[in-house]
């Protein structure tokens, strides 16, 4: 390429060759310097933030391994560091994570306290994390079967999560569909689950897409449209299998059994319930 940039008359003699070699080395150096300068150089992360990030990552690993107490301790350590250096994003992230862990450990009051710490901070935290805290709050109330409070917090989340830029939109729509199901409003649940499915597919959020499909099927079953529930459940089952989520595979199989039972396919329903029970048994063994 460099040689091609010169006319043929200039490509002869030792002096010219030396010039070309010098130019080539200059180009190499220039490329190296440009590569190093590409983009604005980031400020080095301070040791405290690096330590907080390390605790956060270890907490995530402990959670994946099912060691909830250890995960709790590690996220608390990360939060302490973030508080000490006023790293607001870290404070919000670890508080919301701790709320989830308290919920998993059955400590709902502590979970609410963690979220209130973020929600009571006014506008100091970014909208993204305030929306996440509100959504987590809605999920806490929904798990406690306090549907009114859950709907209220879901609506407050929606205030911050109206457009597609909100990364929690698909999850929020699924939650609202679930709340509609709990109220027995199957038509609304079907609509919301359909909207959620579109958002989640657009984001390639496969776990949430599977949730949307399951919710659609549950709404169909609630409307006694058993045949229409089969296709979304088959798709949800395929997704959950691909993601390796035994608890959800079991639920997909149970819902499929319900649909087949509704259609009068007794043998298929029995076979599906047997499969679901087998999956549940193996899952318990793993735990």
């Amino acid at each position, binding site marked *: 390429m460099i040689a091609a940039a010169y006319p043929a008359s200039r490509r002869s003699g030792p002096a010219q060759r030396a010039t070309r070699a010098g130019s080539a080395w200059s180009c190499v150096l220039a490329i190296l310097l440009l590569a190093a300068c590409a983009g604005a150089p980031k400020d080095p992360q301070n040791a405290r933030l690096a330590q907080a*990030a390390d605790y956060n990552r270890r907490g995530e690993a402990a959670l994946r391994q099912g060691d909830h107490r250890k995960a709790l301790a590690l996220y608390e350590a990360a939060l302490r560091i973030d508080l000490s250096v006023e790293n607001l994003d870290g404070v919000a*992230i670890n508080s919301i994570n701790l709320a989830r862990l308290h919920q998993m450990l059955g400590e709902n009051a502590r979970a609410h306290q963690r979220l209130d710490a973020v929600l009571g901070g006014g506008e100091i935290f970014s909208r993204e994390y305030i929306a996440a805290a509100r959504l987590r709050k809605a999920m806490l109330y929904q798990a406690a079967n306090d549907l009114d409070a859950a709907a209220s917090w879901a609506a407050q989340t929606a205030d911050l999560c109206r457009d597609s830029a909100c990364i929690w939109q698909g999850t929020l729509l699924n939650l609202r569909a*679930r709340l509609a199901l709990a109220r027995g409003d199957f038509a609304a649940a079907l609509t919301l689950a359909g909207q959620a499915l579109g958002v989640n597919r657009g984001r390639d959020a496969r776990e949430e897409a599977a949730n949307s499909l399951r919710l659609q099927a549950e709404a169909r079953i609630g409307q006694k449209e058993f045949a229409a529930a089969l296709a979304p459940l088959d798709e949800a089952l395929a997704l959950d299998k691909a993601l390796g989520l035994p608890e959800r595979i079991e639920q997909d199989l149970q819902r499929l059994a319900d649909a087949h039972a509704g259609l009068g396919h007794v043998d298929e329903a029995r076979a599906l319930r047997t499969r679901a029970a087998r999956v549940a048994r193996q899952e318990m063994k793993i735990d």
Partner: protein
Amino acid sequence: MDLDSVPQRKLRWQALWFVLAALLLLGALLGGVAWKQGTFAKTTQLFFFAKSADGMNKGMAVKFRGFRIGTVEEISLEPNGSVKVRLLINSAHTRFVPQDSTAHLTKEGMIGASIIEIEAGATGASPVANNGVLAFTRLRDFNNIAEELAGQIQPILNDVKKITVMVNDPDGELRQTIKNLNTLSAALLETRQELSHLVQNTDQGLDRTFGRLDTVIGNAGERLDQVGASLKTLNEKLPDLMLKVDTSLDNARAATANIKKITEEGVEQVPGILRDGKAAAEDTREVLGGVKNSWLGRSFVPAPTETLIPLDSHDSGSVSGK
């Protein structure tokens, strides 16, 4: 004259200036990294004198309350036979080292690396000056404890040896007692025979009664015979047994000596291996940290960030599944 020579010369000069600028930048980068690593940090020189250089080596860490504040720079033998140790302390930390401070040679944990630990005095003296001399003491380590333990066990072993010799002595009290028991049993045997003979010659009317007595005495005699036989066996076997006990004790002593030797070697070698490994790991971490934080490395290595546990609408559980 070549028509293209002027532009070519100009291009050559431009390339030369560019290379020079790049080299200058590289030099500045290397200088910056060296400054960051503390190469140009101001240091204060301190000394202490020890009887022996055992366990000390050049480059070992000098710590104050667990924090590294300097290194051992030089260890040399003085004309009077004492060992002179030169320390380089980061000048920023000399305020923690008053003039009445003491340097200890100790270990980080039971088998950790040897370090020089500076202990500040209690008199509130002013900070030590450059070329200051500290007092030195060598704290007890695992090796010293093992030697002390061996010293305590040795008298016990000597006592066991004395008892063994006493038991094994043919003229000793134990052997004499056994011999006397043997003699006594033989005498009892003779008495039994005489008594039996006497009873046979007494009144026939008392035959039945004495017959029973004879039986009883006969049984007693049999028991005495057995006692005699047992004592004889014991008398024969005891020297061998004592010899075996003696040999076992010798073996135990040899084994103890071997264990002590192995422990001493371990105490010398294991900390070295651990120290080397630890030093290598620390070096690697420092190099990686330096690369990550350097101007060039920062552009390529992303800084770790904290992440949120994904919010999953399924977390709250399935309503219809309940």
